[in-house]
């Protein structure tokens, strides 16, 4: 038994990594090779797919608009959630606990439910097909999450620090930026990460609320596949490039996330 201990984790990791490897593998093949047969590594190694994506504006604009609304959303979510979480963490007011829980119930409905109202509302005020439309729509899910995570981190800071700062003469904004935010920096990092990830992987709202100008990469991928046949190599390469930002962000916040788990709020 002892000697086989490595077996289960190895199988698990292979299962997890195999699709990713296959995606990378396909991205370096030509579409003909992908359709022609089954090979564990590229027979005619090519980076043509990547060159196509990085030089063709139809492709790289998809990335740019995706990143634009994701970053916008992350900034808005964190900026709005910081004061909200501070209020939940520090003040007692009528219905505070109910309101706090209600925030979370916003995450219980599938995004598709809101696609139609958002579509009509944003069309009415001219936000349709802009990165703002998607960024604001994603706030519906990300702000409750951000408030929850940040509240956990903030409640870990003794309120005596706030009071000491006021006694010392700090005004609230000065205290918040100069003393408080450095204390919950890891919480802000974790929150930004989760906002980034949810917004980055969410496709349905992103596709429904854009048409041409702010089309996200996920929409570009499906459209290209339908107009010019099945460009599987190109699609695979686009998929690989879609994974990279998430992987990078995870790498940078991996230590903070462990801390977030320890606080029981992630």
């Amino acid at each position: 038994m002892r000697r086989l201990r490595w077996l289960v984790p190895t199988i698990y990791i292979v299962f997890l990594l195999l699709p990713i490897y296959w995606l990378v593998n396909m991205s370096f093949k030509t579409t003909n090779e992908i359709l022609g047969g089954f090979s564990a590594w590229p027979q005619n190694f090519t980076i043509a797919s990547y060159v196509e994506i990085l030089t063709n504006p139809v492709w790289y604009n998809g990335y740019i608009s995706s990143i634009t609304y994701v970053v916008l959303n992350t900034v808005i979510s964190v900026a709005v959630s910081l004061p909200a979480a501070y209020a939940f963490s520090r003040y007692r007011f009528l219905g505070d606990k109910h309101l706090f829980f209600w925030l979370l119930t916003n995450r219980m409905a599938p995004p598709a439910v809101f696609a139609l109202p958002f579509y009509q509302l944003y069309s009415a005020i001219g936000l349709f097909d802009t990165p703002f439309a998607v960024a604001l729509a994603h706030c519906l899910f990300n702000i409750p999450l951000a408030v929850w995570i940040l509240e956990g981190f903030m409640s870990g800071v003794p309120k005596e620090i706030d009071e000491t700062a006021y006694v010392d003469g700090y005004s609230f904004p000065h205290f918040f930026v100069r003393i408080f935010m450095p204390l919950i920096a890891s919480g802000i990092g974790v929150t930004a990460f989760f906002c980034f990830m949810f917004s980055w992987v969410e496709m349905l709202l992103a596709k429904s609320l854009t048409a041409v100008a702010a089309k996200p990469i996920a929409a570009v991928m499906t459209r290209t596949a339908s107009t010019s046949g099945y460009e599987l190599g190109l699609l695979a390469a686009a998929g690989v490039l879609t994974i990279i930002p998430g992987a990078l962000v995870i790498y940078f916040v991996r230590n903070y996330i462990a801390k977030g788990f320890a606080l029981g709020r992630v």
Partner: protein
Amino acid sequence: MLELVNVSKRVGNEAHIDDISMRLERGTLNVLLGPTLAGKTTLMRLMAGLERPTSGDVRVDGASVLDVPVQRRNVAMVYQQFINYPSMTVYDNIASPLRLARIDAASIDRRVRRAAELLRLTPFLDRLPLSLSGGQQQRTALARAIVKDAGLVLLDEPLANLDYKLREELREELPKIFAESGAIYVYATTEPSEALLLGGNTATLSQGRLTQFGPTIDVYRRPVDLVTARTFSDPPMNVVHGTKAGHVLELEGGGRIPFPPELADIADAGYLIGFRAHHLSLTPSAPDSVALSARVNVVEITGSESFVHLDYAGQQWVMLAPGIHDFETGRIVDVHLDIHQLIIFDHTGRTVAGHERVAKVG
């Protein structure tokens, strides 16, 4: 001068502070003494302006400061927990109230270094607070409170979380530091011995009420009621019911002892008799001290002295006896009570007569 005028603080139906009036003069050290939840911290927060009283007024030099925000009250506060700004160095921590007051850099530097010198923090000025020991962290917090030259310095059990040796050290230093400034110092503690060591004035608090306020030694010797006496006694004050009949005091449980002659002019009635642990002894402490038989419950030995917990006719007493004593549980011992140290309370707990006498030499 800080004045509290009929200050009350209610949260829901609970009175955290119940109608407290007191007047603190400049250049004095005032100890707030009381058990946990007596309202010490709430009272300090009201003095600081971190909370607003439900009713009553807080006045500085005669003018109400209820509407002055805490940032402009010129107070400093040190908590039981070691509260510093973790993202700033010790130097920046100490300097921060001065920087907010827009004082020029040269005098900030001078004052920070002087405060650091006073609290022996000079070698740590470039370190972050969390990399220091608890004592050093608390000294940083104290330095930040002192450097500000605030008119009112609030210290909320500042030594409670420190280890024994550091407490002794800081406890010696604090009165010297206090003496240097003309500020009003308020020091909250749960320990009677700390109040006595610090001197100054003491206010005893119990369940949100101020029971007595005056020079520390007076409050200790002449508590106005049983609650104050209990608050200001560690180990707890021993109490026994007794009935005065002329020159005899009949104790509940059958003992008959002479009534202290100097208190003999009070009426014959039932009273509560209180005395402190060190007024019981194993050998007669005065020529006319009386012997009583009590059963030993348990003995706590601190080293130089022993706390002997006794059962006298159902009353739990504590005797402070010098040296190490090793009585087995259940043993009956003769204990001697110095009748001149008795404090007589009526059935409502008000002091009727008696106080702790000053020790005589020879």
